[in-house]
C-alpha cells in the first residue's frame, strides 16, 4: 500500500464509553491521524448493519464502531 493512501474512516461512537474516551484522549492531547469522521450514538447497539453498508456506499474506506 502506498504511503499517500489516506483512508476515509467513518466511526460510530458510543456516548458512554468510546465517545467519552475520545474526549479524554483530547484532554490528554494524545495525537492520532485525522482520517476519522464520527457519528455519536447512545450505544453501539443502535448501529444497524444498514448504516455500515451505507457508509461503504458513501465512500468510506473503513468503518469503526467503538463501544
Amino acid at each position, binding site marked *: 500500500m502506498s504511503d499517500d493512501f489516506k483512508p*476515509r474512516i*467513518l466511526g460510530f461512537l458510543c*456516548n458512554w464509553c468510546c*465517545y*467519552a474516551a*475520545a*474526549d*479524554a*484522549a*483530547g*484532554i*490528554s*492531547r*494524545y*495525537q*492520532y491521524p*485525522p482520517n*476519522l*469522521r*464520527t*457519528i*455519536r*450514538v*447512545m*450505544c453501539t*447497539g*443502535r*448501529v*444497524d*448493519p444498514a*448504516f455500515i453498508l*451505507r*457508509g461503504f*456506499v*458513501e*465512500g*468510506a474506506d473503513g468503518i469503526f464502531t467503538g463501544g
Partner: protein
Amino acid sequence: MLTNADFLALAGKQGDFTARIRLRPRYIDTDSCTACGLCTQYCPRHHVDPYNEGLALTRPIHIDYAQAVPATYYIDPESCLYLQHDTCQICVPVCQSHAINFNQQPEELDLKVGAVILTPGFGRISGKTLAKFGYEAHPDVVTSIEFERMTSASGPFQGEVKCFSDGRHPHRLAFIQCVGSRDLGCDNGYCSSVCCMYAIKEALVVKEHDPDVEITIYYMDIRTQGKDFDKARERAEAMGIKFVRAKVAGVTPWKNRLQLTYSTLDGRHEFEPVDMVVLSVGLESPRDAAGIADITGIELNRYDFAKSDTLSPLTTRRAGVIVAGAFQGPKDIPESVTQASAAAGIAAGLLKKQRGQGIVHKSYPREKDIGDEVRIGVFTCHCGINISSVVDVHAVDDSVEDMEGVVYHTDSLYSCSQDAIETLKQTIIEHNLNRVVIAACSPRTHEPLFQETLKDAGLNPCLVEMVNIRNQCSWVHAAEPEAATDKSKDLVRMAVAKVRGMQPLPEQTVPVMPKALIVGGGIAGMTAALTLAGQGFDSVILEQGATLGGHLGLLNHTLSGSETAKYLKHLVAQVKKDGKIEVLTSARLVQIAGFIGNFASVVATGTGEAAKEHTVDHGVIILATGGHEHRPDGYLLDKSNKVVTQLELEKRLAGKARNRAPGSVVMIQCAGSRGDDLNYCSKVCCNHAVKNALQIKEINPDAQVIVLYRDMRTYGFAEDAYREARLKGVVFIPYDLDHKPEVYEKGRSLHVKFFDSILREETDLTPDLVALSVGIVPDGTDGLSKLLKAPLTDDRFFLEAHVKLRPVELPVDGMYVCGLAHTPKPVDETIAQAQAAAAKAAIPLVKGSVSVDPIVSHVDQDTCIGCGLCASLCPFAAIEMVKVGKKRKAHTIAASCKACGICSSHCPTFAISMGGFTNEQITAQIEAFGEVSEKETTEVS
C-alpha cells in the same frame, strides 16, 4: 463542593452543627477557568507530580488528571515562581478567560449542617516499613501504587513498564504481599483486604501487555473473598502467573538485578533473582486520623481507624457524625461505594425535616411551534485559542454558507461564556432559528448548557446538536491544521444534515408511588425498611417464613462480641411498631408488572383455606431474599452425629451443657466451596471458624482445635482474632486441592485424614468432633430472576447494574438488592448494604417523579408486526408486548428506557425510532459524510 479545603472545627449537636472550614487559595477563579490547559503549557517551572506518585513532572499550575472534579486548574504555591519569589506571572496574560487571580487569600467559613459524613480515605505505609524490602535502596523496588501509575495507559509512561535502573523491560517480576499489613512490626496487625486483588489485577495487566513476563506473587493467604474475585485468581493462574506461599525475608541487589530471599511453609529458604519487585502496600489509617477524632469527638480503634460497632457499622460515638469508606476499615471500591450510599441515606433520615427547602424552580417561556421551514443557525467556537490555534475557525464558519437550511452562522471566542450565551439566545429569537448547531467542545460536558439556552429562547431543548471540534479535533491533530480544518468542516456538515431532520421531543415525567416492596424479612430487609421509614417512606415487607428475623437468629454473637439475638429482638420490635412498615408473613411474590415508580405486585399469603392474594402498588422493589447454609456431600455431614456445620457448633457452644466444648475438634474450611459443589468463596466461613475456635478455647482452654484451610480469609480487623486464636493454641494447617482432607468412620470412631503440609506427612486424627465450614447459597433467586427479568451471576446471585460503581442497583430501574441475595457477606456488610439499597431506592421516592429522557425509543404501532424481538433483546426490560385490538404490539416503557437503540437496530420492519437518533437522521449524517468523497473523487478525475 469545596475543594482545597481543611476541616478545622465542629461545634453543636446532631441537626445543628457548625463546621469551620478553611479554603486554601487555588489562585484560579473556578467559574472562569475553562480547563483549556494553556497555562500549564506556558508555565516555566517544573513540579513533581504527586498524582503520578512523583514518577512524572508537571507544572505548579496544573490539574491533577483529565477527569478531575472540578475541572479547574490550580496553582501549587510550593513551587510557583510568583508565590515563592515574586516573579514570573506568565500565566496571567496567557489565560484567555482571565481566570488567574493571585490576590486570593485563605478564607475561613462556618457551615451550618445537620450531619457530618467522614470519608477521608486511607494513608500511606511508612518509608521505614518499605525500607525493609529494599525500597529507596534500589530503584527497581516500587510500590504497587507507583506500579499502578506505571501500567496505566494514561499514566506517565503510557503503560510501558520499565526498570528505573537501566530502562530495560523486566523479564521477571515479583509481587510481595502484606507490606505494612498483618505485620505487628509496624503496628499494623490488620489485613488491608484489597491488596491480593489489586496485585492480581496489576499482574494480569502486565501479562496482557507482555505474555513472556514471568510473574510470581509471594503471599501468606490469597484473600480474594469478594464477589467473583476467586475467578480473577483462577484466570491469573491460567495465564501462568505463579502464586508462592512464602514469607519474603529481604530484597538485595544481585549483579544488575535483585535477589529475593524467602522462606516457605516447610521451613526451606529459597533465593530468586528478579528484575523488578512490586511491594503490595497496605491501607494505612489516614494521616490526620487523630486530628479528625479530636475535631469531631469520634473514637478511633487501636489502628487509628474510626471505631464503630458491627451492628451499626457507620455510626460513631458522636451522634450525627457518620463514617464511610476506608477510614471505617480497609475496603475496596464496591464496599466504599456501598457505604457512601448508606451514609447518605442515614444523613438524609437525620435531615428529613429540611428536605426540599431552599429549592428554587426556574420558569421558561412557552415552547414555540417550529413550523415547517427549517431555519438552522451554526455557531463555531474558537475556545480562546484552543480550537483556533489549529483549526481555521473562519474557514469552518464560511463553509456552511450555502448549506440547505442554514440561515445564520457566526463564530465566537467562547461560546459558553455568560455573554455569548445571552447573545445566542437573542440570535435565536431575532433570526427565528428553529435548529442550532454548536461547533465547539463535547456534548458530554456542554450540551446541557446549550439545551438550557434553547429553552430560555422558547425552543425545545432537543433541537441543538454539538460538534466536537476541540477534544476530538484541534487537541488531537495539533500538528495537522489543514487536515483538522477539513475534519471540522466535515463534522459540521454532518451535524447540519442531522439537525435538518430534528423534531421537538416532549419532556415527560412519570409520577412515583412513594412506597417500597421489600422481599425478605431478615436483617437486610428489616434494616432497609427501617432506613426508608426513617426517611418518611412506607414499605411492605414480604417474608416467606412465618416470622421475621431470617438467618441472623441462628447466630449467637459476632466475632467482635456483639450479641445478635438481643439486637434481632430489638430490630423486630422496631419494625412491628413502626407505622410506616407493613409486614406480610408466609408470603411470596407471584407476579410483578409495571416499571420504576409504578409497580403492581401480586403477593400470595397463607395456604389452604387461609390462602389470599394481595395486590401491592409500589414505586420501587428491594430484594433481600437472603440465603442458607449449603450442606455438602462427602464429609459425612448428616450421616455422622460427630460432623456438624459451624452454625450447629455455634449453637452448641452457646448452650449450657457442661461438655459443650469438645475436647478435640478438626475444622475443615471450604467444605463444598471454591470449586467443589459451589464455585465461590462464601466470605464469612473463616471468621466463623475463628470465632468458634476462640469460643471453644474460652470454655475449655485444653481443647485441641485444628483448622484445615486453603487460605485463611480473616480480612480487615478480623485478623486480630485470627492471631489471638493462634496465640491461644489453635493450630492452622493449610491444605491444597491435591490433598483434600478426608472424613471417614472406622468402627465407632470418626477419622480425619489429611496431609500436614508443615510436617510434610500424612496424618490421621480421631477428633471428638468435625466442624465443617460450609458455604452459603442464595434463596430462590432463580424464580425471582425470571419474574423480575433481572439477571443472575453464574453462581445464582443477583447481578448488580455495575459491579463497582452501582453495587446495590439492578440493571432494571427501580430494583435494588442487598444482603446474601447479592453475594455472601457478614452482618456488618449486610447492614451497610441494606442501608445503601434503601438510600438508593429513596431517590425516586423523594423526587416523586421519574424524568424520562426525551431520546427514548418509540414504536410506530402501524408498522410493528408484534414479533417481540425488541422485547426479548431489551437489556432494561423497557419494552412490553401489549394487545392493541386483536394484535400484539410492542410498546416502550419510557421510564425504563435507556435510549440504547438495540430495539431500533434490530426491528425487522423499522417500526422503532430513537428520539434524536432516528434512522433518517443517522442516514443523513452518513450521506453528508459521503458528499466530500464525491467532491474529492471529482477533483482527482
